[in-house]
């Protein structure tokens, strides 16, 4: 099953490679990984999207906790959470595509953030599956380029990951 794991770690050189190295050394799946400093600049927050059986996920959490640079780990799937990912898509905007792309963008509540003679750049946020759905809905020949950030996650309500 897919899991979203959030963690706080020391914002130090090498911390990211310890996490990445752990996943490759132990052959854990990694779908996406995002990381950036938090409001406290000594800490980084990472969101990892992974998948595996319950036993594997349990080991992943334990192994992450064991890394000396990791301060706190939370499996967002243990409760209710919000997942968001940002995607930028450059699409053809010539002829009939120009109207069609605008319409699709509106339906998915995206925004056109750059306009050129032959193309639009669309910004879209949502869950990973919403972004997938958008790409599927587009005419494949219209997609020029895509870039996705990978998911960020946060617990709902009072669920807070902080030290």
């Amino acid at each position, binding site marked *: 099953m897919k899991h979203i794991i959030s963690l706080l770690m*020391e914002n130090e050189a090498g911390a990211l*490679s310890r996490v990445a*190295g752990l996943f490759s*050394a132990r052959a854990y799946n990694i779908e996406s990984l995002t990381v950036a400093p938090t409001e406290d600049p000594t800490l980084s927050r990472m969101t990892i999207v992974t998948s595996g059986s319950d036993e594997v996920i349990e*080991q992943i959490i334990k192994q992450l*906790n*064991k890394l*000396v*640079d990791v*301060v706190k780990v939370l499996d967002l799937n243990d409760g209710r959470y919000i997942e968001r990912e940002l995607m930028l898509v450059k699409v053809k905007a010539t002829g009939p595509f120009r109207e069609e792309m605008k319409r699709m963008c509106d339906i998915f509540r995206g925004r056109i953030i750059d306009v050129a003679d032959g193309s639009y750049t669309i910004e879209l946020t949502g869950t990973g599956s919403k972004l997938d759905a958008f790409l599927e809905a587009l005419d494949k020949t219209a997609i020029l380029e895509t870039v996705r950030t990978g998911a960020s996650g946060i617990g709902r309500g009072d669920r807070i990951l902080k030290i």
Partner: protein
Amino acid sequence: MEDPSNPTTGNQCTGAEIVIRCLQEENVKFVFGYPGGAVLNIYDAIFNQSHFKHVLVRHEQAAVHAADAYARATGEVGVALVTSGPGATNAVTGIATAYMDSIPLVVLSGQVPAPSIGMDAFQEVDMVGITRPCVKHNFLVKDIKDLAATIKKAFYIAGTGRPGPVVVDIPKDITAQFHAFSYPETVEMRSYNPILKGHSGQIKKALRLMLDAKRPMLYTGGGIILGDASEQLVKLARRLGFPITNTLMGLGGYPATDRQFVGMLGMHGTLEANMAMQDCDVLIAIGARFDDRVIGNPDHFFSKSRTIIHIDVDPSSISKRVKVDVPIVGHVQSVLGEMNDLLDGEFKAAADKKPEEAAIQAWWTQIEAWRSKKCLSYDRNSDIIKPQYVLEKLWEVTKGDAFITSDVGQHQMWAAQYYKFDKPRRWINSGGLGTMGVGLPYAMGVQLAYPDAQVACVTGEASIQMCIQELSTCKQFHLPVKVITLNNRYMGMVRQWQEFFYGNRYSESYMDALPDFVKLAEAYGHVGMRIEKPSDVEPALKEAFGPKLKERMVFMDFLTDQKENVFPMVPNGKGLSEMILAEEL
């Protein structure tokens, strides 16, 4: 230049001097190392100090192994010092060996000057990157201001929680810069706080299950040794009267000559230990990590149901390979201490009542039946030296009181099976990584820690050649180690697998062109002996361990049976109760 941020001390030191003073603060007695460009400043500072002894090895791998053995034998953190590049890479096998067995080490490596990092500088290697997967943690010191605090953290991390090696990589320019020395008294790390005290509710739950057990089994490992908890373990085991087995790493954690001890378990464990492990109804695992060499085929192991209690300081050791019913995260000393207290207090009445006495009696009867099969018997009338015989005699001659280091192979398993370890920290070997070559440097580390103790290195003619250059170190430091080579002219453990599973095709496992070990030992300034007949085994051992050779290193080359195999054996993929026994062949 005074450092305004540090009002307590005005004394300016070079980075190299800071390193030395940190080691003094940590009460380090031995540093095992080898010099080179990147650590020349540190070596210059070593020249002017007398607080610790520097032990010059002949290969950096041996420096780390010797420091590792020093740690295994004493419980202190071992320290090694190597230069950048090739010095650092030579150390990696030693670091990985210590990592797999959770041994506390601090390895200081020189690095090229900070401004040169990443420039493919002479003797540059990314030590932090190379060692990342085989250390508990590592550091690159980027500012002399952090040097002392980093070394403090390294010792703290190495020695606490589940111990392990920590590398501190120090660029050369930092060792030449000046800064005031001040050593932090304590370490606070928000990201590292090992859990030491076990959950009381879980401990009580475990005790209730233990008291209700009909076929209980204690299975204990390296955690008992690492956590110095054999006293608490003995108390607990005696109070409960349960059978107890040790892993290869746990030997000596419970006295091997005690009746409750059923021997080592696992791939080369005894029949009684493996059968009891398979058939028990409540399994109490303490500081042991359900290694694949211990449980055999997992599906076969799970085919019998049992309740498992698991005590370990590292949560990730629990429910990794084997699902556990009652996990207890904590330090063995604390958890076993609490169990013993409860058995003297809240649980005393329940324990005294012995609710399952009859069942446990029947369980022991079963275990004695297994034990009576004498799975460790061997041919005592052979006119070729049997390796098992050498080890039995070694045990007798040393009165079971020696420190035994070993290399990796058949000789290692025989040492584990036939030398009965009654005390912890006496059996020093590489279990997790299985590194050939550790034996001799391990013996050096132990002998330095305990100069008056009997130290024997049980090895094979293949393994010993992997670090044989250390005979020179032994000479320089007057280390009267006794090397017991069980010379079967084969990589015996490899040959055994080839005999069983590869149709006797002994591909590249014959040790051809062996040196004359007697002459070799003599060339290094030691005493060499070749022993070819069973009747010479005991006299030779007595001579080697006798008063005349007490101060000398003795290299004993026992020509042993080439075709002897290690039994029992759980073949790969088979279950614990599917051992091959000696008599079956």
